[in-house]
């Protein structure tokens, strides 16, 4: 299913909406409250820094006044000592503010990432069918980084705002006219910085998109190099790449233009402030309204405010985007799973794994009805093959048993007990599924088999592998059972992977084994390797197997023939072949099934 129709659609739009902004800020606020002690320490550090920042220019001014008035020189030394002391306080303040700001943001990031992971693990199949991996990855990486940045900047921004207020107050106290003129720099720089940041952010998203466009061209050229070379179309790929490169160039130059326009302002705006202080302040010094030291301290105030003003502007420019990212994270975490534990799970019944479907209906959330009243009894310890045309609902039937989905109507029992009354752990411990697409974790083969049963001993792992006909090839690998497989490990063939996942399925010795089209993606040679393994693992176990190949159907006790969302025939394969013409017809359409 496509990623587009996800439940998270409401907040996955690129441009933040007003309600998202509110939701995002509310989420940020809740996060912040959780770490309030760290936040408070960081803010205290920031206040310390602020106090020093406001004091230092005054000390410099006092020293200059002594110099201008011609001494006494000895009066300067205590002031210099004071300056060093306040400098030390400032350093301490910065240190506390930074360290705890980082701690706040990294702690929150790590905790939220854990929550996202745990939450995703709990969400049912329906959710994952509709949500792409990329979307979930984005929540836990780029969105979370946005959130972290804002959290990290929050204490310093609060302190900066306090500082601007304090400095403005001090400036106005020293001299209302000059103070008023100098304080004009604050809105000018803030505005420039916010405008600059929001524009550059826009371009950088654009640039990112184009970079990934180029990466796409490169990727397809490299993975499809045989096709490119076979048709001699290197020039065509080159043209695609150059188009992409020009796109990147344009986005980068757009950004460069914004930078060239705005960045020099961060030098010239403070310099204009200095000019204003020179003109207005100079005249007021001449008129004797302020001291020369006051004049110098004004120039110093202008200098220390430049960087904080830039950062504050950046903060507010990024706030909407971060709030939107926070809103998306919040929405993900608030989406509750539909398939949950029963309030009072009943005990697991004894039995050989009899499965009964009673009037089971199933529709996907988009309304597509897949099962329309399935009645099916699979006697304990027997194997049943599910046969039907593509889309008949075979996989759905198989997936209902371990409660990957719940029926929209009707019920399913395991040894007489409704599976919704069992705890999920109990149920899934008794029902093993071998999926069509084998998925191996990046871990050793032994650990991959142990996914089926964490407590399995080495000998249990080995006997499961023997049962699945995997032991021999595993022993042939360089590190045997310790060979690391999965995305970042050794490559196994399709048949080998399939047998490892079979071993994983049987290591816990489940009551029920479900083989979900487990052999469809391997060729005949490999299937014949697996065939024997299947025969072994199915012996005496309730098995539900989806297959097209007659070779596999030869292994089962009964076949349930599914059409139109119902089981329309049930019985041994050969019997159905004779009794149900439509059954033979559907099988015949499958090339490997009908050949013989």
């Amino acid at each position, binding site marked *: 299913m496509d990623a587009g129709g996800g439940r998270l659609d409401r907040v996955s739009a690129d441009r933040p909406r007003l309600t998202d902004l509110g939701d995002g800020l509310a989420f940020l606020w809740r996060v912040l409250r959780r770490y309030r002690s760290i936040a408070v320490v960081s803010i205290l550090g920031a206040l310390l820094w602020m106090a020093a920042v406001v004091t230092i220019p005054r000390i410099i001014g006092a020293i200059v006044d002594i*110099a201008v008035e011609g001494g006494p020189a000895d009066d300067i030394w205590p002031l210099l000592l004071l300056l060093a002391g306040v400098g030390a306080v400032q350093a301490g303040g910065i240190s506390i503010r930074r360290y705890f700001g980082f701690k706040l943001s990294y702690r929150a990031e790590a905790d939220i990432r854990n929550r996202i992971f745990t939450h995703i693990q709990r969400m049912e199949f329906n959710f994952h069918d509709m949500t792409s991996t990329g979307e979930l990855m984005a929540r836990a990486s780029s969105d979370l980084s946005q959130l972290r940045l804002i959290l990290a900047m929050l204490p310093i921004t609060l302190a900066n705002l306090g500082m601007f207020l304090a400095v403005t107050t001090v400036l106005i106290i020293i001299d209302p006219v000059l103070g008023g003129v100098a304080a004009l720099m604050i809105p000018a720089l803030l505005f420039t910085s916010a405008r600059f940041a929001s524009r550059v952010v826009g371009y950088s998203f654009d640039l990112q998109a184009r970079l990934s466009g180029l990466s796409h061209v490169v990727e397809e050229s490299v993975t499809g190099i045989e096709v490119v070379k076979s048709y001699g179309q290197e020039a065509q790929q080159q043209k695609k790449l150059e188009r992409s490169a020009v796109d990147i160039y344009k986005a980068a130059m757009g950004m460069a233009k914004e930078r060239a326009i705005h960045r020099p302002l961060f030098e010239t705006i403070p310099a204009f402030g200095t000019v204003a202080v020179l003109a207005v302040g100079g005249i007021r010094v001449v008129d004797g309204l302020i001291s020369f030291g006051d004049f110098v301290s004004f120039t110093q105030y202008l200098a220390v405010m430049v960087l904080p003003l830039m950062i504050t502007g950046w903060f507010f420019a990024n706030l909407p985007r971060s709030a939107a990212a926070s809103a998306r994270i919040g929405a993900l975490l608030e989406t509750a799973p539909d398939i949950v534990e029963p309030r009072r799970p009943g005990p697991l019944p004894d039995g050989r794994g009899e499965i009964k479907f009673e009037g089971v209906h199933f529709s996907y959330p988009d309304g597509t009805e897949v099962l329309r009243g399935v009645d099916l009894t699979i006697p304990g310890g027997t194997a049943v093959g599910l046969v039907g045309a593509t889309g008949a609902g075979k996989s759905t039937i198989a997936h209902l048993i371990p409660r990957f989905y719940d029926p929209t109507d009707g019920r399913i029992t395991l040894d007489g007990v409704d599976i919704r009354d069992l705890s999920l752990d109990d149920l899934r411990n008794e029902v093993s599924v071998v999926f069509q697409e084998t998925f191996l974790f990046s871990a050793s083969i032994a650990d991959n088999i142990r996914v089926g049963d964490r407590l399995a001993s080495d000998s249990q792992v080995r006997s499961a592998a023997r049962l699945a006909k995997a032991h021999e090839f595993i022993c042939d690998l360089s590190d045997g059972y310790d060979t690391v497989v999965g995305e970042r490990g050794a490559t196994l063939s399709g048949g080998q992977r399939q047998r490892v996942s079979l071993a994983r399925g049987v290591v816990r010795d489940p009551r029920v084994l479900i083989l979900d089209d487990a052999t469809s993606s391997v060729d005949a040679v490999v299937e014949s390797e697996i065939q024997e393994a299947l025969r072994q693992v199915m012996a005496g176990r309730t098995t539900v197997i989806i297959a097209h190949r007659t070779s596999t159907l030869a292994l089962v006790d009964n076949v349930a023939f599914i059409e139109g969302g119902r089981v329309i025939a049930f019985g041994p394969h050969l019997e159905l072949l004779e009794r149900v013409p439509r059954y033979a017809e559907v099988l015949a359409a499958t090339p490997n099934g009908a050949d013989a």
Partner: protein
Amino acid sequence: MKYMSSAGDHKVEKPGRLLARAARVSSNLKWPFVGTIALAIVATVIRLIGPLIVRGGIDSGIAEGDKRAILAAAGLYVGTLILQYFATAASQFSVAWVGEQYLLQLRGLVFRRMLALDMGFFGRSKSGVLVSRMTADIESLQEFASDGAVMALSNLLTVIGVSIALVFVDWQMAVAVFAIVSVLLGVTRVFQRQARKAYDMVRERIGRVLATLQEGITGVRVVQAFTEEGNQASNFGRVNEGHFEANMAAARAISWYFPVVAFLRVIAIGSALAIGAMRVIDGTMSIGTLVAFLLYLDWFFQPIINLSNVYNLLQSALAALSKLFTIIDEPAVIKDREGAYDLPEPVRGEIDVDHVRFSYLPDTLVLDDVSLHVDAGERLAVVGETGSGKSTIAKLVMRFYDPQSGSVSIDGKNLSDLTKDSRVGAMALIPQDGFLFSGTLRDNLTYADPDATDDDVWRVLSTMGIDDWIRSLPDGLDTEVRERGSRFSSGEQQLVALARAFLADPAIIVLDEATSNLDPETEVRVEKALSVLLEGRTSVVIAHRLRSAERADRVVMIDAGKVIANGTHDELVATSPNYKELVDVWTIGLA
């Protein structure tokens, strides 16, 4: 994968030589580059005039009580500021322009060289590493070009300019400031070593976090099926905590360094004041000079810190450059030799593989003295176990590789004597998964011949019996295939690949048959389209199923790099025990 490490085997050249080579990539940017630097110098010099104007305004205006002199100085300053703004903006823009132009050319060059390399190179290199050359590595150059270069140039000039200005204004105070700056440099070195270590760790660990996360998402169904949620969560928690700790190590480094820098800045101001104030009292220095000195000092510390950051960017840009040169330097083995000629038209499609020996790696012979003849128009199936060398034969026919000895010929002409264009036009390869490029269906169908008209396309589609399927798609030929054809089933991708080959109209088709099962309806379509495509052409089919062997005119069985059986299906079933065994495996249980 974005977070994939781009590290590879390479030796890093000396920075000087590397830069010299880098400069040669695009010689046409030389003068713009020189102009850019000149512009930046002008902008910096204008900026440095400012404090001197302030000094003039103070000493001849404020100190003398001359209001007009004050206003004159202020007016002059405003004038230079306007000049300064435009000069700085222009220089920053042109630095970026030069950098981006350079990247544009570099991207084209590296990719062109990459595509020209032979399959041996692609076989040896992991595709992720190749992709990251063109992406991660060039992006780290991009980062330098768009941000680093401007920062480097303007900050370097500022530091040099301010140093000169400080000495010019008052050398004694300047010496005191330089002493403190040397402490700053030492502290910065320590910090950088610590920070780099921390950030390397952060990078490595975020990679693990994301990989674990992705595994948790893609494997979520297995996790739930085996009630592994708890173990997965605690495993992720561990990896995630490791990333947190790496972040905090970086945070600790930052949390001592920046306070120290701020403290040193205050100390520098204090020292300048201590000396300056005394000399003002002595009357050996004007107060304007002291103020100008303090103004310069404000521009000194931040650029030094910026430069140390830029240095990191420069280092990774250089490392990226040297990796890119490994691709640019890689020689293309398979290319038209001198005197290569065109394959004579019309191409009949006769293939001769003559005493071919071939190995991908030294000492492991994949094909050992293989000889084969395929008649024009014949359909040959090649069978054998995985690793027997059967697909290598297909690759040699396509001249993805040259044999170590022996020869491969078409119509009696040795492949290595033929021009690439004529050779490529005579053959088409259909890989196992079909392989579709992003773009529309039309783009994919006309891949070999972008000039083909829609009429041509529809004619081919209807001949192959798939026009109704394409017509049934809402967007028809304009349907976006998306990345690697994710919208289409694997059977549908194969159909498109077959039609693509048909439109190319080659005399020879090399087909690597898919192994996976298709849904019955599509399978029938594929079979039909395939027989239309192969009609009247020579074909080499790497066969994985019984049907394809049965339908071939002739079957060749390869085992351990040798031809062990050669004849019609029926002949081989009767005469070759090995072949019989394979056929039995194929048919097992089908009865």
